[in-house]
C-alpha cells in the first residue's frame, strides 16, 4: 500500500541542477551485480537487493560476489541489502535483474512500495512461461509504475565488469526513461542507445538465448565460423518473423539488442546458454548441466515458451524447433543438425510475395499455368 506518509517526496534538484544521485538494483546475480558496480563507479549511491544474506555480507565486507563473478572487485559505492522496501524507496530509478521465473513474485512485492513517479528498467532477458509475457509487461501488471523500460544488448557481465568497452540499448515508450538511464549508466566504457521499440528489444534479448544454445551445440560438435555465422543469420530471420507478430519493428533486430547480442552470446564461451549447448553436444544430460551451472540459463525456458507459441501460431522457426527437440524431446545434436540441414531447400526471404510461386492468383490463366507446372514437377 502506498500512502503519502510512507513515501518520501522526490528530492528536488540541488542548486547545480543535479538530480538525486542514488540508484537501486533489484537482483544480485552476475548482471545485476555488474550493473550496480557500473552505477557505483559513476558516483551513484547504489543499493543492491538480493535474498541471500551471506552474499549481502560478502558484497558489503569483501566487495566480491564470488558465486557469480569470481574475484572481480565491486565498487565501494554499492551496498547490498535484503530489505526490498528500502531498495524500492531509495532511488528514482530501479533496475530489475531477477530471473524470469522469479520476476513476477519480486515485481509484485515491489508493487507494495514503489510510486508512480519512479522509473523501472528491466535488464532480465527472458519470457514468462504462462501467457508469454515480457518482463516489462509484468512490471506494468504488478506495480503502479508506468515509466518502464528494458535494457538489452551484448553485455556479458564478466566483460563489462572487467571494463571492456561495449554498448547496449535501453528501450521505453517514455523519452524520460531513456534519458535518465542514459545519464546514469553510460560512461567511458559503457555506451547506451535509446529505442522506442520496447517489444522488439525485449523479444530480441529473450530469443537470442535460444540461438546461443544452438551456437554452443555447434561449438561442442567442433564446428567453427561458417556454422556460427549461418546459425546467427538464420536465427535473426526467425527472430524477425516472431517479433513482428507482436508488433516489433523489424529494424530493431538489426541493432545491438538483436544481431549485436546474437554475435556475443553465440560465440562467447562466457555465455551460460552457450555453455548449456556445448555440454549437450559433448553428451551431457540437460538436468545435470543446468544443476552444474549454479545459475539460471534463461534460454532453456525461453525455448519451451517460444516453441509452443510458434507452433500454435504457425511461425516458421526451424532452429528453435531443433533446439527444442534436443532439450526436451531427446534428439541427439547430430540428428537435430541433420534434420535442419536436410529440410527442403527454401528461399532466404520467405515473406516477399513477389518471389513466391503462388499457386492461385487473381488471373485464371496464371493459376491454370501454375497448376500445370506443379503437375509436371510432382
Amino acid at each position, binding site marked *: *500500500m*502506498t*500512502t*503519502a506518509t510512507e*513515501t518520501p*517526496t*522526490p*528530492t*528536488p*534538484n540541488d542548486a547545480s541542477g543535479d*538530480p538525486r544521485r542514488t540508484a537501486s538494483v533489484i537482483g544480485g546475480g552476475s548482471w545485476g551485480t555488474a550493473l550496480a558496480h557500473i552505477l557505483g563507479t559513476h558516483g551513484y549511491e547504489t543499493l543492491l537487493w538480493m535474498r541471500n544474506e551471506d552474499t549481502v555480507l560478502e558484497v558489503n565486507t569483501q566487495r566480491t560476489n564470488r558465486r557469480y563473478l569470481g574475484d572481480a572487485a565491486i565498487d565501494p559505492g554499492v551496498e547490498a541489502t535484503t530489505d526490498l522496501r528500502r531498495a524500492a524507496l531509495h532511488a528514482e530509478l530501479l533496475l530489475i535483474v531477477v530471473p524470469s521465473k522469479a520476476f513476477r513474485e519480486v515485481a*509484485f512485492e515491489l*508493487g*507494495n512500495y514503489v*510510486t*508512480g*513517479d519512479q522509473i523501472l528498467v528491466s535488464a532480465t532477458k527472458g519470457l514468462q512461461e504462462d501467457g508469454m509475457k515480457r518482463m516489462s509487461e509484468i512490471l506494468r*501488471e*504488478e*506495480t*503502479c509504475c*508506468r*515509466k518502464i523500460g528494458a535494457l538489452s544488448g551484448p553485455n556479458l557481465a564478466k566483460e563489462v565488469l572487467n571494463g571492456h568497452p561495449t554498448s547496449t540499448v535501453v528501450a521505453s*515508450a*517514455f*523519452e*524520460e526513461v531513456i534519458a535518465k538511464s542514459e545519464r546514469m549508466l553510460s560512461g567511458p566504457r559503457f555506451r547506451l542507445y535509446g529505442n522506442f521499440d520496447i517489444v522488439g528489444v525485449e523479444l530480441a534479448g529473450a530469443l537470442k538465448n535460444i540461438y546461443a544454445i544452438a551456437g554452443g551445440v555447434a561449438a561442442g560438435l567442433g564446428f567453427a565460423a561458417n556454422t556460427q555465422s549461418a546459425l546467427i543469420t538464420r536465427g535473426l530471420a526467425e527472430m524477425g518473423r516472431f517479433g513482428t507478430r507482436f508488433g516489433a519493428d523489424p529494424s530493431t533486430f538489426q541493432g545491438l539488442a538483436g544481431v549485436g547480442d546474437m554475435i556475443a552470446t553465440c560465440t562467447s564461451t562466457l555465455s551460460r546458454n552457450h555453455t548449456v549447448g556445448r555440454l549437450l553436444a559433448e553428451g551431457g544430460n540437460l538436468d545435470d548441466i543446468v544443476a552444474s551451472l549454479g545459475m539460471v540459463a534463461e534460454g532453456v525456458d525461453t525455448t519451451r515458451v517460444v516453441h509452443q507459441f510458434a507452433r500454435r501460431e504457425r511461425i516458421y522457426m526451424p532452429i528453435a524447433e531443433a533446439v527444442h527437440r534436443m532439450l526436451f524431446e531427446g534428439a541427439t545434436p547430430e540428428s537435430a543438425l541433420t534434420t535442419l540441414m536436410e529440410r527442403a531447400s527454401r528461399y532466404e526471404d520467405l515473406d516477399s510475395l513477389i518471389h513466391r510461386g503462388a499457386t492461385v492468383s487473381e488471373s485464371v490463366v496464371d493459376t491454370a499455368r501454375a497448376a500445370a507446372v506443379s503437375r509436371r514437377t510432382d
Partner: protein
Amino acid sequence: MRNEIRDAVVTEVQSRILEACLHQAVVPGGMPLDVLVNDTLYHEKKRLEIYTSAPDRDADLAFWGQVKHRLGTAGEADLRRLLQEIVGRFVQEVLGNFRDSVYRLSTTVLPRTLPVLLNAMSPQRLLSKGMPDLSDTIRIEGDVEGLRRAERLGTVILTPTHVSNLDSVVIGWALYAMGLKPFTFGAGLNLFANPVLSFFMRNLGAYRVDRTKTAPLYKDVLKEYATVTLEMGQSQLFFPGGTRARSGFIEQRLKLGLLSSGVHAYINNLIRGRARPRVFVVPCTTSYEVVLEAETLVEDHLKLVGKSRYIITDDESFQPKQILRFFRSVLAMDGRIVLRVADTLDVFGNRVDEEGESIDSRGRRVDISRYVLDDTGRPAHIPQRDRVYVREAGAAVSRAFREHNVVLATNLVAFALFEFLKARHPTMDLYRLLRTGGDGTGIEMGVFAERVRAVAVAVREQTEAGQVHATDTVLEGNPARLIGSALRHYGSYHRNPVIVRRGDRVFAGDMNLLYYYHNRLTGYGLESAAAGEAREVASR
C-alpha cells in the same frame, strides 16, 4: 454551464491560446506570428473555396478578406490584435448560440419531452400501451453507481461506443434517468443541420465541432476549450471512435483527443491546487438490436477504401420518416437498446476503488499525482510523457469496449449465419461472398439452430470469464428463441429481410446487413463455433 462560467471559459481559452502563440513564436522552428496568421488564413480560404454551402460562408469570407487586408501592413501589435480576433472568432464558433436560460430549461424539460416526442411518432402504441416509459426501451446496466460517484468526486469524461446518431440522445436521456447533471459534448456541425437531431444538439449543451476546419489553430482552440471546461468541472461526453462505426465493429482504433484534454486538465488542476482535481474516464457501450443507419453505414464501409465518406449528411438519421419507422419498431418490442456503463477509470487508465481512489491491477491504491511530477517534484506538462499516458488510457478504453459489449440476439444470429457461410465458401473473398451470398442453397434449420446454440454457449463462457456481456435471451441460449427474436427485430425495421426462413431452410437475405450485424462479434474467437462442420463440408 452557467453564464459566468461560460464567460470565464471564453476568456481563459482565448488567453491561453494567445499566450501559447506568443511563446511558440520565439522557439527555434516555431511559427512567427505573421506566418501563423497566414497559415490559418490559408486553411480557412481553402475551406471556403471547397465548401461553398458552409453555414455563415459570407460572413467568414468577409472576415478573412479583412484579415488578409490588414495582414499586409501589420506590425507586432497589430498581429497580436489580429490573432486575438481570430482566436475569439473560433471560440465563439465552438460555443455556438449557447443560451444558459434555454439550456437550463431544456435540460429539465427535454428528458420529459423525449417520450412525448416518441409517442407522437407512434400513436398506435399510445393507444395500446399508454405513455411510453423509456426505461422499458432503453436499458441501463453496469457500474452506474461508479459513474455517479465519479461525477460527485471529480469531472467525468464519458466515452461511449458510437454506432448511431441517436447515441447522444439515448445517452442524454440515460444521464437524466441516472439522476446526473447533463454532460456537454462536441458534436459535428452536420448534426446541427439535421432536421430532427439539431433540436437535441442545441438543447443538450453540445458545442460545435467543424470537421471541415483544418487550421491547426482551430484544432488547438477546440482542444483547449474541452480542457478548460473539464477544469471547470463540466463533465463531457466524447465518442473516441471519432465517428459512427461504419462496419459495426467494436471500435479499437480510437481518437484520443478528449482523453488528452483529460490528462491536461488534471495536470492543470494540480498545478493550480484545485480542490477537486480528479478527472475520471467512464467508458460505456450502446447496443441496439436494430441500428437506425445500418444500411447506409455498411454500404459506406464496403466502398473501396478512400471512397468512403467521413461525414454523411443524407443517411437515415436525416430522414424524419425513417426515424419514425425506427422508433415505431423500437417501441413495439421489448428490450432493444442497452446502455452499459463500464468500470470507472482515472485519466491514466487505472481502475478506481469504491472511494474513487485509483488502484493498480492488484487493487493497491496509487497516488496518481506522482505520474505527472517533473524533475523538481512539481506537477508539470511533459508532452512526450503525456502522449504515452493518453495512449495507455486509450488502450484501457478499448479493452473496456470489448469487455462491455453487450451481445444481442440480432448480432449472435447474424454472426452464426455469416461465419457458417464464410466457412462453407473458403475460396470466396469477402466481396464475392457479400455479392453472391454463397451458393444460395441455405442451411437446414436444424443445422443452423445447432450453430446458434454453439455460439451462444461460447458467448456464455466468455461472459462468465468477464470478457463480454450479453442479454438474458442470449445467455439462456435457446436457439429457437434467439432466431425468432432476431428475425422479429430485423423485420420490424429493415425493409429487406436480413435472414429468410423458407420451409425448413434458412437463407441469407440482405448480405450487407447480415455482415453489419455480424461484425459486432468479431474478434472474440467465436468463428469456429459458428462454422461447425461447414469447413469440412467445404473441403470435401
